[in-house]
């Protein structure tokens, strides 16, 4: 299991993937908003999305685990 962390402090703007979905390397799991920018959260190595720890609109902190992906 890989913990996917937010690299920024901001809020969740849009969730793009759903739990159970197969993700290719580089697929976008969700888009955060920070400093008026859309920052994609990416499944770097791909896998299956096992867990979403946030919902749209909630604030996130840098380093917070926002999703869990199984390799």
């Amino acid at each position: 299991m890989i913990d996917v962390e937010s690299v920024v402090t901001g809020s969740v703007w849009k969730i793009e993937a759903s739990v159970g979905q197969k993700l290719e390397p580089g697929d976008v799991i969700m888009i955060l908003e920070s400093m008026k920018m859309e920052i994609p959260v990416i499944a770097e190595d791909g896998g299956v999305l096992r867990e979403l720890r946030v919902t749209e609109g909630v604030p996130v902190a840098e380093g917070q685990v926002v999703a869990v992906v199984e390799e």
Partner: protein
Amino acid sequence: MSANPQAPGAGAPPEPTGWEPELEELRFRREQSAALGGPEAIQRHHDQGRLTIRERIEGLVDPGSFQEVGRLTGKGAYDGGKLAGVVPAPYVMGLSTIGGRPVAVGGEDFTIRGGTSWSGDRKKGGQGGFVEDLAHEYRIPLVNLIDGAGGSVTSITRRGHSVFPGVHGFEQSVRLMGEVPVVCAVMGTAAGGPAGRAILAHWSVMVKGTSQVFAAGPPVVERSLGQKIHKEDLGGAALAADLAGTIDQVAKDEQECFELIRRYLSYMPQNVWELPPVVRTGDPVDRCEDGLLDIVPRNRRRPYDMRKVVRWIADRDSVFELQPSFGKAVITSLARMNGRVVGIIANNPMVYGGAIDVKGARKQTHFVELCDCFHIPIIFLVDVPGFMVGRDAEAAATLREGMRSVYVSLQATVPMYTVVIRKCYGMAGMGATDKNGLDLKIAWPSAEWGSLPIEGGVAAAFRKEIAAAPDPRAREAEIEASLRADASPFKTAEAFGVEEIIDPRETRPYLCRFIDAAAGRLATTVGPKPKFGVRP
């Protein structure tokens, strides 16, 4: 006949006519030195996935180039006046070449008492040791392969007194930072003095899983704070490099560590009195990458891959990113443009939209100083909305650290080139310009600038007007749109407030032209750079 023990006689060995006995002793002493801490200690070291200091030096330097100095140092054991064996001094060093150029290299031998210090007439390595004198006197780079435990309280028993901290030598380590490239590789667990020395470097590297660095290790931490913590959690690569930026780079193993050191030094001059080596790569100066044209999305909220921009502009395969895992809002790379070494500072829109946070600022400060010290021109690829904002950022002193990065930029005297890719705002934007030089600023059509981004500034500057409007949000959008039209980069170019707006594909040829032309001027300003004033 008088009794003369020297006289040849029946049964006595013949008097040597040459120096064979001494050569035999020299050979024996060299064997003892090569044996380090002995086969068992070496096996234990290897079992931990670590190389010995001799293997490390061989792995790092040009094959066969190591000329050791101080091979006979150690503690001899004598049996009735006859040499029985020598425990070598736990430090191996000498002169070598890397990429055909001389370097001073040395490191602790962990297989002998964990590489702890040794009391000879003259220090071999560490602060103020021979290896530092060699780098200083010959003005050649210094590579420290650090694998020593540093001081120990047991020295009180040995000496009969407690040593005052900071005996002579550290001033030499500090002096070297303004004279020659200093590289430190943490090859094991470094605490105290050796850990401090690892930081006194222009660039440092550690090995994932087998090296740790901290002011003090787990036993001291537990005693002082009651914290039980494993050394990997206290000072492994994830903390020391990725989180704290104490060490610049992480190698996956010792072999990669040596490759990284060689690569780093390939961009460096031998000393501050020389310019970095020019290595033509055959990559055409007029190569115009089509990808540059549409890499910046029209939607201003969308980030893009700045590393691609760096790769496409620089000579092919010449980009060497420093501190890639730390302070990710700023990307700092050594690279070549038409063979000449440049430093590239690029904002990363993927992290906080490129806003400079405290880590990014710290990274930029160091990189600007590094480039200025070794006469490496700097290219800024600018997409910076400003310093990071918010309570956390203020609490971390982002403003102070950010202004420090601006301060060093405004003190630096190497040629700098500003390429505005998208946003260039505020003091962070000013820090990306060449105020002591030509101040050449070129921009892509996607560029925008000002003292602060329009969307943030409108709400503050037109607060009353917006509040009084029947539809405040619509009024705010209206004001934004009208300001944005006047903020077109072409209007600033009309006023020569920016020197050029270019097709993004022209970035490489444009920069190469100016970097080539500045080579003669760079040669007139070699030597140490005096620093005045007090950094904020």
